[in-house]
């Protein structure tokens, strides 16, 4: 056990999964890097450095650079998976799903159902998601909320290094196609991560904080911010459950409902826009299955219905802040019947 960043934890998981199973390989743009150039092939390891060292350890057959061709990358991963491999493809920024949507949604995600349960597609597609870098409208989106709406795809959103490692190892082992969203603002965040392999099952939420007054459900990058908001309110005598679902598909409905039954108040936090998003999804769950327990309206804390702006000030106003979460919790306490 030692402190590892999310980047290093994911990197370690990839090394271990590839060492343990020869059918696992990595494919994407610059996952090795420097191919065809005078530089040392493999010296890049992905634009976020997540696949660093894989080329050196596993060679060109298992750490594969591609041209800029996202549809073909996802399709190649899907096809290799259909015939028994366990590819882990990297699509860099989650926004680039726009380029390869068909291969993910109409192909990979539906094979099993359309083929009458007779196929398996154990592919993992990794993405760096979310805002915080002034990267503007085409490099800041979460996209996981959109992908959650497609039956047949599993959707994973780790919020810390420990979960990232365990969830990725589970994703690689899983026989269904998995979309793995790494909030890029968390790559440098570190926590204790075991050196050995371990898995975290899908559909099992983590209780990050436990309390009595309010249930806060937060996804990805928002988990830390929600925790900070909750910790600050402790002094004011407000205590909250903080639930990190870790996977949005499958969703641990039981954990959320159990908490809402106990607290009677629900706030859902995500950095994506509100319409048809995860906050609306979880709010609907409570309206549908825990209405009787609610003492106050369900609140969604999320981005507004707009693309992500470039300017740092605008982006700071766009992504839910600790203060905004805190204020919403207080308002909810004041409104309760």
């Amino acid at each position, binding site marked *: 056990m030692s402190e590892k960043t999310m980047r290093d934890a994911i990197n370690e998981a990839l090394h271990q999964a590839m060492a343990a199973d020869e059918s696992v390989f990595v494919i994407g743009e610059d996952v090795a890097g420097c191919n065809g150039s005078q530089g040392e092939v493999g010296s890049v390891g992905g634009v976020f450095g997540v696949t660093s060292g894989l080329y050196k350890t596993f060679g060109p057959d298992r750490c594969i650079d591609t041209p*800029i061709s996202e549809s073909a990358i996802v399709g190649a991963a899907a096809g290799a998976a259909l015939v028994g491999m366990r590819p882990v493809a990297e699509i860099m920024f989650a926004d680039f799903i726009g380029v390869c949507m068909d291969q993910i949604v109409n192909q990979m995600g539906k094979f099993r159902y359309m083929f009458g349960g007779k196929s398996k597609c154990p592919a993992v597609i990794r993405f760096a998601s979310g805002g915080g*870098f002034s990267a503007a409208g085409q490099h800041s989106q979460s996209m996981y909320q959109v992908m959650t709406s497609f039956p047949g795809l599993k959707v994973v959103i780790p919020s810390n290094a420990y979960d990232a490692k365990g969830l990725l190892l589970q994703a690689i082992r899983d026989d269904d196609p998995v979309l793995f969203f790494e909030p890029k603002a968390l790559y440098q965040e570190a926590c204790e991560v075991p050196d050995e392999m371990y898995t975290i099952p899908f559909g099992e939420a983590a209780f990050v904080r436990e309390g009595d007054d309010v249930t806060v459900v937060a996804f990805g990058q928002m988990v830390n911010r929600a925790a900070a908001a909750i910790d600050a309110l402790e002094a004011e005598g407000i205590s909250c459950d903080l639930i990190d679902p870790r996977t949005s598909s499958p969703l641990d409905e039981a954990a959320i409902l159990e908490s809402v039954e106990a607290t009677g108040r629900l706030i859902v936090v995500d950095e994506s826009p509100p319409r048809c998003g995860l906050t609306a999804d979880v709010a609907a769950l409570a309206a549908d299955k825990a209405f009787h327990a609610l003492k106050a309206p369900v609140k969604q804390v999320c981005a507004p219905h707009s693309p992500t*702006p470039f300017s*740092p000030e605008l982006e700071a106003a766009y992504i839910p802040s600790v203060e905004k979460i805190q204020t919403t919790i207080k308002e909810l306490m004041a409104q309760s019947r």
Partner: protein
Amino acid sequence: MSLPKEKLLRAYRQMKTIREFEERAHAEIMNGQIAGFTHLYTGQEANAVGVCEHLDNDDTIISTHRGHGHCIAKGADVIGMMKELFGSSEGLCKGKGGSMHVADMEKGILGANGIVAGGPPISVGAALAARIRKNGRVAVSFSGDGSVNQGTCFEAMNLAVVLKVPAVFVIENNYYSEHTNISYAVGCDDLKARTEGFGFPVFVADGADFFSVYEAAGKAIEHARAGNGPAGVFAETGRFHGHFVGDPQTYRAEGELDDLRENSCCLKNFRTTMQASGELSMEELDAIDAEVMTLIEESVSAAKAAARPTPEQVTEDVYINYSGQASA
């Protein structure tokens, strides 16, 4: 090739403006004044200028993530661009887009683009409009050696031929897509031939030489404007910085950057040509250099002093109108 003196002075000024805009942007990024991801065009200036010097205000271009040079060459306001990079609400795009999304519809700049090969299909649409309206306009899209491997690029090239529209595809081969060399990422040996395989002529240029690009682009644009369908320009070029600011550039050969700056500098080449031909004096070019430096300095002071956006602006400009009725 002999060009009017006014044209020569203008071409040099445009290239120098791009160079100094980029070098200053680089410095301001290092100073922490400019946020986000920025891709600099330094070294490739002759490509943008050699192409855009053939275009009127109403012709269109669509650019890439490495878009500053194309936008300046097509007439974007330099001060407005610098303000945009600084994230000011007075910027060309009100601080909403930043470096990767500089645009100016008035100038026929349909935008830089953060999605590799997002541009070519859109450019085919602009070219289609020109064909339908019979207005003699051309639509130029810029692509890199990496972007040509994207399906959207293939689709756009084929569609342009099928529809016989005045689309011009400019491919700037700077040999790298991020950290990968063209010799790996383009599977065939001859990208020009592959592009011609779509069914349109491609004119080759030395991207470090304004006159070479100007000549090749002239042929391509003339071909498209005359109603013969699409055409291409294929320019060999080099970027003097990393892919993005902060790129460690482990893919470079030893001495590669020094060699590029020394031997593939379009400004130096331009001066050498002028010195040999005597068409422009070095004093005339020095005077332009000084004026450009003043303009860039002014743009940075203006950007630093410019208004900052306020939170309520986040939700402005998402739609023209979002209350259900058709907009006026």
